């Protein structure tokens, strides 16, 4: 009850960005740039992702796809352009024509509504599967432990790991760990889920169990951005596919047109290289 009240209060307090229009996309990127030292990793990314969309980003390593993902939840700070999530400017607070950098607490608050699943799972090794899942809701959202536990058990059930509630991450296979990690993100009731090559660190036979959970999730209408090498998943589940290379979105469209009948030569070359 108090939880719902705080949530409403928070959303009312949120300053509406002047650029924000009704029906705006959940994620909006305008000319996003990022560089590490002298290396330009993102060279002006423009992208609009409506609520409920599953966007798959493919591309060679070093193309900037993971970096773009990490910019969305501020694990990296952008050097140019602008990003909005849920109509709220990422990392800054605008007053007139000035952008004020957000403080630690405000950045943390923005991250709450964005879940992220990592290539290397990053479960907390000192906590059990159940404790991993309730950590965010209890510590960050202030949810009562009993409520959080009930929800966590339902989530474990949903990812097919109800019997692993008391297992430590080291006692789980890679695929099981990744499914717990997905449950952990979901426990925060995110508006947006980011997947950073979620199956790349898995043994081949464990990939499908994670993809299945992601498929189920996509069907519930969750907005997802998936950086992935699984072209089959991108084709079947993605509403749109973006091909990135050298810090730019080279091609963007529905999965069939990008993956089966690409227009750009770089896209063709990449897809052929991955297929063979």
């Amino acid at each position, binding site marked *: 009850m108090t939880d719902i009240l705080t949530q409403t209060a928070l959303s009312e307090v949120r300053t509406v960005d002047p650029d924000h229009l009704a029906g705006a996309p959940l994620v909006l990127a305008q000319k996003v740039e990022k560089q590490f030292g002298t290396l330009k990793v993102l060279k002006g990314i423009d992208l609009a992702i409506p609520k409920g969309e599953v966007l798959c980003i493919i591309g060679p390593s070093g193309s900037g796809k993971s970096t773009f993902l990490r910019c969305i939840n501020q694990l990296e700070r952008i050097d140019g352009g602008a990003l909005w999530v849920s109509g709220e400017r990422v990392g800054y607070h605008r007053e007139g024509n000035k952008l004020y950098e957000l403080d630690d607490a405000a950045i943390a608050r923005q991250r709450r509504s964005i879940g992220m699943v990592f290539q290397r799972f990053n479960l907390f090794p000192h906590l*059990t599967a159940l404790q991993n899942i309730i950590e965010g809701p209890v510590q960050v959202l202030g949810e009562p432990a009993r409520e959080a536990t009930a929800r966590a058990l339902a989530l474990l059930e949903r990812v097919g790991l109800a019997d692993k509630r008391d297992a430590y991450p080291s006692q789980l296979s890679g695929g099981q760990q990744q499914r717990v990690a997905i449950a952990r993100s979901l426990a925060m009731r995110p508006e947006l889920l980011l997947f950073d090559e979620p199956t790349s660190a898995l043994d081949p036979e464990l990939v499908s169990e994670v993809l299945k959970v992601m498929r189920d999730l996509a069907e519930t209408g969750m907005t997802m951005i998936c950086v992935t090498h699984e072209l089959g998943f991108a084709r079947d589940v993605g509403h749109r596919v973006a091909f990135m290379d050298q810090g730019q979105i080279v091609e963007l469209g529905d999965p069939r047109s990008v993956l089966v009948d690409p227009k750009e030569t770089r896209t063709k070359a990449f897809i052929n290289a991955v297929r063979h």
Partner: protein
Amino acid sequence: MIAESDNLIIVPRRHFGRIIGAAVVCLALAAIVRAFAVGQIEWNYVAEFLTVQAIMTGLVNTIVMAILAMLLGIALGVVFAVMRLSANPVLSMTAVGYIWFFRAVPALLQLLLWFNLALVFPTIGIPGLFSFKTVEVMTPFVAALLGLGIQQGAFTAEVVRAGLLSVDNGQYEAAQTLGMTRLKLLRRIIMPQAMRVIVPPIGNEFIGMVKLTSLASVIQFAEILHSAQNIYYANSRVIELLIVAAIWYLVVVTVLSLIQGRIEAYYARGVAAPAQR
């Protein structure tokens, strides 16, 4: 080719070197025991003074001082380790300076400095608000606590820093992604994992601290060695009372070692048990 019969007998290899070594060690031990037995030690005095009031008070003071100085050291160590890893150069250089100074100056010298602080600052306090005579504030207890705790902080800071660095960067990112602020992230996610690396050396240092408190006897703090000395100044049973003190140090350190093992096991949870070696 000779056919092997089924009833060959295996003769175990004889380790002559080990047998000789063991024999030499046994002889040496026997010699030491005999030396103490026939030496000028009145063991009945050891037994008599083992539980005497002054020794018990000294023992309690030793334990209390070791715990308080260690707590001060850990608190300072955590603060300075976090400062050391800060992106702010003023904070990190301050931490570097603290660690440099208090690790370099001998503990005994630091105790003497604190105890004699009144020579530099006759009064301490905030001007206009309050002030005290330094001599009255800087009792042997306070001087020992500050001297031991602050130098311990310098060592602990390095241990804590190593622990924090041992935690994978992905753990910071996962916790940030959940919307944790920096302080919560350190407390809930990073420190519990760093503890696995931090506890063994801290346990070691705690044991070192128990023994380091004996330095405080120099500034008249009534810990166990000081009590033992006070008694033997009166009755001249020097060795007997030193043995009494030694026995109590052994007891305390043994108990601490057992506790350390328990704590290590607690923080190792979630990590596969290492193979028995």
